[in-house]
């Protein structure tokens, strides 16, 4: 996400015009366009997320509205715009050159398609998966859509209240229009009250999103370490399923998942399936107290990471859980040689 009114005019060449793009989310970016050059080419050169396709004045993907200044055609180019559209200020950036400084309005956001939107959903299923965890499956209503990256979260308006609550998405974008959430039950919580007493299939829920900078870095081949506490497992499920489905060699993944007690553990079967499907996925299950049972150790999910041998210092780590766990995990991983910029985390507070 770019910050509003950021400028990139470090060294404008002589004869260049300053062209300012106003994205629909309020972000403005300015670039220097060399005399006679295409405005699109200069914008792309500066790394701006300008929608484009044919680059030859035909397909109209790079349509923008001129709000100030003047433009002319790039020499030798043609434009598929009608004269009436030109008169209304419409321009194709690929075949336009700037005649002095000018401004364009764009009808899309600066984040490249991940604008925060509000959407309506229907409840498909509500089910209890552990003593204090509910699984909620939503389905986007006709005409509603959101985009997100695996790891990001959404906000739910709790039906019948004026409260909102945030939850990481446990499913992947490929599973849309379905959205899966894992919700921890809290005595007296408004969401818990709704889930336990009123939520049922076909209930309507309003959501907004996506939010958060905690998401899977694409194309990373170094080993992945994921440490999750409780419903902090949700974004990890989304990331694991995303890795499974993407092309190319898969990274090794170590998931350490901890809960307070065996009664609170959930998704063991789902994790066993992922292990079957992804030979490079290793899973450690821990509970804070109680007796060890088959496949589950007693202890915290942080300390077990690195016990099997030295970690690859190029590893990337994803941490999600209560603040204490996230802090401990970060310290532990840095001590084991991971660089701080390769550790991504999301902490949640009960509400």
């Amino acid at each position, binding site marked *: 996400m770019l910050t509003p009114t950021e400028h990139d005019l470090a060294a404008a060449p002589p004869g260049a015009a300053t062209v300012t793009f106003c994205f629909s989310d309020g972000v403005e970016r300015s670039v220097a366009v060399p005399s006679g050059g295409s405005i699109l080419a200069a914008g792309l050169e500066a790394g701006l997320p300008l929608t484009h396709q044919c680059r*030859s004045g035909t397909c109209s993907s790079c349509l923008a509205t001129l709000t100030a200044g003047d433009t002319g055609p790039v020499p030798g180019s043609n434009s598929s715009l009608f004269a009436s559209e030109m008169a209304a200020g419409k321009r194709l950036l690929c075949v336009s050159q700037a005649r002095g400084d000018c401004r364009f309005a764009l009808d899309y956001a600066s984040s490249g398609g991940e604008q925060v939107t509000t959407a309506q959903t229907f409840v498909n299923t509500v089910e209890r998966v552990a003593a204090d965890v509910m699984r909620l499956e939503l389905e986007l*209503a*006709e005409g509603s859509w959101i985009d997100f990256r695996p790891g990001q979260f959404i906000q739910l308006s709790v039906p019948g209240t004026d409260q909102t609550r945030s939850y990481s998405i446990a499913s992947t974008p490929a599973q849309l229009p379905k959205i899966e959430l894992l919700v921890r039950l809290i005595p007296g919580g408004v969401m818990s009250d709704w889930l336990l007493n009123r939520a049922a299939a076909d209930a*309507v829920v309003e959501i907004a999103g996506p939010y958060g900078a905690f998401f899977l870095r694409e194309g990373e081949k170094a080993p992945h370490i994921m440490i999750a506490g409780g419903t902090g497992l949700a974004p990890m499920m989304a990331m694991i399923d995303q890795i499974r*489905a993407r092309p190319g060699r898969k990274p090794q993944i170590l998931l350490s998942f901890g809960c307070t007690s065996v009664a609170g553990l959930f998704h063991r079967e789902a994790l066993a399936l992922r292990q079957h499907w992804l030979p490079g996925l290793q899973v450690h299950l821990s509970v804070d107290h109680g007796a060890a049972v088959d496949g589950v150790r007693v202890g915290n999910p942080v300390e077990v990471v690195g016990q099997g041998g030295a970690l690859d210092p190029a590893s990337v780590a994803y941490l999600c859980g209560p603040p204490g766990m996230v802090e401990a995990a970060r310290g532990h991983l840095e001590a084991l040689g991971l660089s701080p910029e390769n550790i991504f985390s999301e902490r949640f507070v009960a509400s």
Partner: protein
Amino acid sequence: MNEAAPIRRRSTVRMNTSDKRLNDSASQSQYQPYKDAAWGFVNHWYPALFSEELPEDKVEGIQICGIPIVLRRVDGKIYALKDQCLHRGVRLSAKPTCFNKSSITCWYHGFTFDLADGLLSTIVANPDDPLVGTTGITSYPVEEAGGMIFVFVREDDYPLDDVPPLSQDLPIRFPENNARFPHPLWPDAPSLLDEGAVALGLHRTGQSNWRIACENGFDNAHILIHKDNTIVHALNWVLPLGILPNHEEPITLTEDEDGPKGLMQWLFTDRWKPVMENPALGLKIDALNGRFYRTSVVLPGCLMVENWPEEHIVQYEWYVPITDDLYEYWEVMVRVCKTDQEKAAFKHRFDHVFMPLCLRGFNDCDLYAREAMEEFYADGTGWDNEQLAATDVSAITWRKVASRWNRGIAKPGKGVPGATKTSSIRLRRLAEGKAPGYFVEKIEDVNTY
């Protein structure tokens, strides 16, 4: 958004899966990825053509896993690109147009692609177009072995650096696997990758999903369909009525890190019990000549039948997905021939015995047997409604190992033949008596009057 607009559920999208699967998470299984692979497993090596089908400078178009592919041979080397012009989707192979040795040109608007990397190198009537050099079509790695051409069918964004060697998608080899998979009853099976390997065979289009076809090849109860095949009686072969698992490990997985991924069945050992008679039906096999063989299968669906149909020969089969209801059936026999005489003798025996009696007569039965199963599975419900039995341990093991080691599930074909089952062109071709197939039909030059 209009505040008063009613909030409605989405109209149901059917995705070739049953209601049970869609609605019941408990029916998710260990081989869910396999159930999802109606269009095949992508990012694997598949046979594309026999070498002799692509002589110097020839261009052919085919389709694998819903991906259109054009092949051209130049100075002996084979190049493969996506057979779908990036401009407006025209198939380059429909009317091959090449102006030099390093490119192929779309015959419609002249978009020209570099054979080596698929980059748009020029446009015939617009050499200065700003698109030139900025975009292109996907290229596919190619290997040739024993007289067969293999293509690594990849998704557009599968990195070329991650392409494994061909050997990882071909059956395990002997003698290097003799200790692990001993075979006292027959000599080492040859491999397509052996020096002097000669592959003879045919490929033809079958009308079923590729998985139905693949599972038939190593199904130990399916040999009933071959009971009265000519070669079985002519050579007095002992072919059991069926073979039942009789051991805690009738099948061993092959999952070596850098090797092919699949399974090996311990046939004709004490781990499987041949069934020679069924008294209730008055059936008894009393032939004289033992016919020992062993079947194994590796991703992306390559069957090996060792010691078949005679010593020193191995039969390979592939069931290459074309669409979700069409596959290219490859039946190939491989023998190592050290001299030209050996090669001529193999070819002679192949032409006069194996081709008519095995690849045709014997395997014809497999083709119609798969077709007989297709409709039960065609809408996706068969995978949930089938009632599997003891011998199906082979199919289930394969589904699980394939779910685990496949390199990607092919997405339904887009903008290709078979993606829309009722297109007017498809219907016209049917009316002309041409069934949907594997090859792109070439446009006949009408400028001959």
